[in-house]
């Protein structure tokens, strides 16, 4: 026997089962987390905090020795240049230390766990079985228990997804699931039982709908299983079925069979544009881009999750909408993100925030961080957006996320055939996001955070990025025939939609799980993130699995499409659902909802004497939350990644001016581009949702026109966010807004290609329910023939002429000027689409011909804000006169002319040599030269009375415009 054959036990020192490793920045390093925390504590009115420390904690379990721990701590977890670590004991705290440790709740996914485990395994250490992270805050100072609780509650954690770690926390492994067939007794249920079942089961179905389900199962003579009932509830949810907007409505005596089809969708049908490739059908609307490629666009909301957990809600909102273009046709490559938010007033006193609602500043910061982290990590530029503020969004913020994808034309369709395998790819399935689809139809209350916490999820953008990378590869190799994303309703919705025409058999036990213990119905409706479903021909299975494996993407066959037209679900060969696709998709009972609308009486005149000097008013309007600079938000988004953005959100020599539409050049070797914009103004909706909708469309199209886009190839998206439309007056407003969509878009010849609605945006505070203002977001996407001809809104050269384009009316209702002066009522801005189209077409032509140096659309704050923004973005002053500005004859006041928010207006900059040709192109359009760009830093406006009414330094105006966010975020310089 030789020595080497003898089994020598390897001597291992100090075998361990558990260790805690703490990591923090060295004291001489500036730690932005610590500094940020100190500032935020001051915001809470707690002034006794002397210092704070932030410690990252890793808890490892398994079978390892002290050598392993040394290596893990010092070579992997700690940056030895800037950090230090402590193990197995925690860092010693100094005197008067208050320690708070925060960890994720069991079942909430922590992306860091997976990547850290990978790093440890890469290093050759195999004995770690589990890893958890937590965040430890050490706060120094004379603080009462109450203060610490306040800091913890308001700043350090959100109980929806996290908890405060008590000493020596033991994580219990989850129990495995033992199969049990569950039937829900519905055959013998009376109406009261049905109601209770709907509420307790979080199905959120109406009694009529529950009765329809009972009738169906009575007909087939058996009770539904839990899976069957969940499937029907999910498919019939407002979120998935849009039963209000797609339903029958009796409005002021007029009957709609299907509101959406008779308004928004009718525009598209009537216009019948050849470049509309797929509308209202797929996950996103598709239009033609160039001879080889199509582009698709989708915008949707993620409001209720963002209200409860702003970071996770917004993250999964953008993550979800990115999957829409990924799942459109046979998949497109996401190239642009856009985001629009509506928040409460971010500097509101804490006492104004209702119980159960998070403070608007916290919501804002969380939402922005979520969108930032997910969008940036996906490598998709966020180039356009908007933010609105209103007190009524406090309990129910709105988070709209949008994404544009590009695809070779041949991949614009999909087809599922019987026999195709159902392949689930991407993230694993967990208990996260259960009942998201049904929950979105519920009213938010102060109890929502405890009842619906499973409806909130944390995303993992890197998982989605891997899925995207490999899917595009598999698509180009034509390895699958159809694809869709797992969004609301999870597999139930994805497989249900894909198999609607065929039928599907699914083996739920095959689904890869994050942890054990999930019941079959939970697997079926879980909305765990980053998952896509594919239809794959059996002969292509090996190849597609190889593609996924090559980049560490998990995929598994979970069933196959059949020709039974039935949905059959199995769990280990037990049948857990067996229903006809027809009951799921067509069984929803049709009811007629009642809608009414009565115009509100508005006082017309301005109850304010016209001030002699309007500099102060301009300054005030510039520093309103709605108008002020959003640079603090915009800078946190990567707008350069992919190298395609050729008109960025921040413009001018100092890159801080506000841009109109964004322009993106998606193909390096072509000068064709995409213009993208958003129009939204909830202020007008309070007066009349019809004109709010019309104004939103006009605003979106104005922005595209202002950058040199051409309305000939522009498509629209609608996103309606309303209060409870079971109330006839709320529904009446929704009908009016829909009618405006038809009336206005039809004349502009801009078809709608996709849309979404989110109803029931209300916050219940016990006795009082606060509804959001009716809100319609219109997003526009246009194809630009040559990006080199597009222009920006910052003034370019001294001596150039400034023109006002478009006519001003006495339309001060909902204006920022009224808001800052606390004036109620007024006439809301209207749109004359025939005249407006003529104006925009002429301006487009002038820009295309190179006659315009810069252009900016007038929106919130009217001509005054429009001019101020152009000047301080460009860095030059101007002297202008209001005399002769095209206006309604009744306008006699300069403040009205400056601050009315009439639609279809622009200010443009023309070189003196182009004066004639510009005026010729604009013949028949109301335009007027108002003055010149000057080599001063002054904005000087002469009023209708020939007297100077504004004399302001543009840098002062800019400072005031930037002030609100700087102050809010403590970044005053």
């Amino acid at each position: 026997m030789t020595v080497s054959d003898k089994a020598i036990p390897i001597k291992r020192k100090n075998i361990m089962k558990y260790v805690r490793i703490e990591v923090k920045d060295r004291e001489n390093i500036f730690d932005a987390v610590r500094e940020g925390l100190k500032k935020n504590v001051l915001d809470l009115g707690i002034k006794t905090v002397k210092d704070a420390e932030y410690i990252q904690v890793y808890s490892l379990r398994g079978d390892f020795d002290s050598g392993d721990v040394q290596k893990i701590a010092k070579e992997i977890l700690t940056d030895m240049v800037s950090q230090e670590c402590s193990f197995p004991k925690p860092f010693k705290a100094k005197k008067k230390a208050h320690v708070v440790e925060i960890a994720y709740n069991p079942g909430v996914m922590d992306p860091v766990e997976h990547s850290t485990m990978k790093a440890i395994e890469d290093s050759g250490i195999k004995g770690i079985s589990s890893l958890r992270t937590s965040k430890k805050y050490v706060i120094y100072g004379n603080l009462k228990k109450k203060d610490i609780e306040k800091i913890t509650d308001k700043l350090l954690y959100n109980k929806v997804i996290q908890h405060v770690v008590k000493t020596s926390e033991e994580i219990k492994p989850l129990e495995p699931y033992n199969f049990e067939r569950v039937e829900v007794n519905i055959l013998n249920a009376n109406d009261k039982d049905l109601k209770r079942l709907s509420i307790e089961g979080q199905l959120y179905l109406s009694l009529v709908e529950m009765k329809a389900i009972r009738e169906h199962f009575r007909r087939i003579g058996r009770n539904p299983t839990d899976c069957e009932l969940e499937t029907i509830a999910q498919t019939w949810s407002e979120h998935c079925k849009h039963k209000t907007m797609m339903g029958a409505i009796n409005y002021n005596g007029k009957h709609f069979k299907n509101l959406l089809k008779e308004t928004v969708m009718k525009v598209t049908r009537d216009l019948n544009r050849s470049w509309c490739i797929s509308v209202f059908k797929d996950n996103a609307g598709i239009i033609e881009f160039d001879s080889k490629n199509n582009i698709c666009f989708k915008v949707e909301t993620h409001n209720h999750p963002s209200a409860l957990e702003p970071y996770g809600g917004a993250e999964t909102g953008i993550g979800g909408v990115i999957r829409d273009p990924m799942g459109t046709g046979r998949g497109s490559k996401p190239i642009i993100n856009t985001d629009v938010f509506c928040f409460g007033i971010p500097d509101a006193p804490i006492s104004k925030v209702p119980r159960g609602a998070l403070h608007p500043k916290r919501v804002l910061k969380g939402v922005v961080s979520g969108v930032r982290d997910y969008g940036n990590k996906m490598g998709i530029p966020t180039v356009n957006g908007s933010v609105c503020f209103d007190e009524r969004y406090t309990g129910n913020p709105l988070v709209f996320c949008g994404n544009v994808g590009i695809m070779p034309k041949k991949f614009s369709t999909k087809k599922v055939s019987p026999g195709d395998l159902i392949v689930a790819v991407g993230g694993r399935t967990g208990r996260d996001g259960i009942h998201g689809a049904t929950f979105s139809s519920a009213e938010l209350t102060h109890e929502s955070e405890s009842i619906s916490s499973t409806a909130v999820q944390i995303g993992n953008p890197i998982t989605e990025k891997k899925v995207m990378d490999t899917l595009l590869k598999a698509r180009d190799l034509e390895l699958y025939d159809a694809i869709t994303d797992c969004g609301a309703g999870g597999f139930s919705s994805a497989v249900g939609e894909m198999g609607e025409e065929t039928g599907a058999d699914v083996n739920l036990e095959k689904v890869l799980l994050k942890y054990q213990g999930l019941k079959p119905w939970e697997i079926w409706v879980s909305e765990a993130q980053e998952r896509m479903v594919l239809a794959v021909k059996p002969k292509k299975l090996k190849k597609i699995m190889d593609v996924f494996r090559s980049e560490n993407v998990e995929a598994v066959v979970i069933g196959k499409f059949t020709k039974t037209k039935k949905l059959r679900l199995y769990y280990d060969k037990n049948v857990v659902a067996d229903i006809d696709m027809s009951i799921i998709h067509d069984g929803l009972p049709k009811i007629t909802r009642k809608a009414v609308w009565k115009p509100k009486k508005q006082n017309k005149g301005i109850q304010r004497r016209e001030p002699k000097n309007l500099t102060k008013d301009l300054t005030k309007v510039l520093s309103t939350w709605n108008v002020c600079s959003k640079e603090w938000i915009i800078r946190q988004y990567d707008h350069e990644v992919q190298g395609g953005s050729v008109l960025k959100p921040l413009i001018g020599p100092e890159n801080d001016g506000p841009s109109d539409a964004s322009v993106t050049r998606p193909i390096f070797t072509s000068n064709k581009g995409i213009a993208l914009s958003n129009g939204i103004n909830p202020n007008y909706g309070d007066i009349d949702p019809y004109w709010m909708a019309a104004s939103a469309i006009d605003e979106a199209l104005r922005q595209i026109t202002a950058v040199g886009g051409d309305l000939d190839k522009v498509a629209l998206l609608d996103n309606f966010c309303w209060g409870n439309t079971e109330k006839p007056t709320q529904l009446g407003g929704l009908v009016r807004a829909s009618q405006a969509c038809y009336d206005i878009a039809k004349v502009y010849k801009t078809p709608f290609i996709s849309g979404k609605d989110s109803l029931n945006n209300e916050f219940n505070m016990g006795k009082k329910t606060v509804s959001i203002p009716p809100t319609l977001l219109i997003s526009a996407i246009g194809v630009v023939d040559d990006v080199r001809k597009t222009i920006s809104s910052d003034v370019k050269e001294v001596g150039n002429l400034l023109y006002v384009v478009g006519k001003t009316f006495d339309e001060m209702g909902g204006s920022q000027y009224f808001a800052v002066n606390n004036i109620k009522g007024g006439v809301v801005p209207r749109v004359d689409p025939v005249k407006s189209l003529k104006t925009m077409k002429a301006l487009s032509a002038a820009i295309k011909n190179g006659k315009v140096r810069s252009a900016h659309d007038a929106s919130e704050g009217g001509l005054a804000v429009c001019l101020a923004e152009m000047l301080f973005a460009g860095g030059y002053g101007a002297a202008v006169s209001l005399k002769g500005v095209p206006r309604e004859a009744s306008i006699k006041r300069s403040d009205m002319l400056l601050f009315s928010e009439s639609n279809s207006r622009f200010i443009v900059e023309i070189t003196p040599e182009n004066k004639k040709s510009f005026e010729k192109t604009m013949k028949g359009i109301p335009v007027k030269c108002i003055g010149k760009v000057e080599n001063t830093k002054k904005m000087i406006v002469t009023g209708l009375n020939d007297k100077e009414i504004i004399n302001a330094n543009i840098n002062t105006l800019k400072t005031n415009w930037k002030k609100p966010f700087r102050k809010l975020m403590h970044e005053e310089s």
Partner: protein
Amino acid sequence: MKKVKTLILRTAGTNCDQETAHAFRQVGSEVDLVHINALVKDKKILSKCHILAIPGGFTYGDDIASGKILANEIKSKINKEMHAFVNSGKLVIGICNGFQVLVKMGLLPKLGGKSDFQIEATLSLNDSGKFEDRWVHLKSDSKNTKCVWTKGLPEIIYVPIAHAEGKFIPKNRSVLKSLKDNGQVVFRYTTQDGLEASYPENPNGSTDAIAGICDPSGRILGLMPHPERHVSFLQHPNWRRLSRTDKRLGIGLKVFKNGVNFAKKNL
């Protein structure tokens, strides 16, 4: 003439691979986009290339610390091949996340050209505490450095940054001194007029406003800003304000041209 081959390394979370590939192709290089798994499987691929580029992105989500997990993976799985590649005088460029990877595996600054990679610096969270996207002016010290990537660049160039962890911190004063003495500081953040930069011109609070460094041989370059995002004038944020003569190429392209030309002549 010889074709220069560039290997662009990808993994989960890489996201500037396409624009980096475009930049290299524009200056005449062949480009291979290779996933780390493929490289680990067939390690020979590396030696067949002249230039290794690690592009920007968020590899493995920036978890633990940006660049750390990929750096650890390269060291654990292809350490020998990396050494051989670097020792044979070939070129490496790490942009943004790629720079973080190079620093965290000790391939930069590689003071004194030691063959065993030591960690002598780091890139950590911006002083502003958040991700920021902004265009910055960089002073390139092309006279005093051996860096092959920056030859002939104008004194000040304009490129964007987009990162959360870009604050350059040398391990100690002597590391900083050596960096300067060796001419390894390639780019510094500066103002438009070339003056000393503070926030936001120095966007992250880097020590000595350092934006990019090279190894002592000048062949390995790492930088936080993105030259590949300014390879066409249309990417300049204010190209509409530029005079006609300035509307030609993006200044960032010169960096890639330098690398490819050097490889063509010397490798």
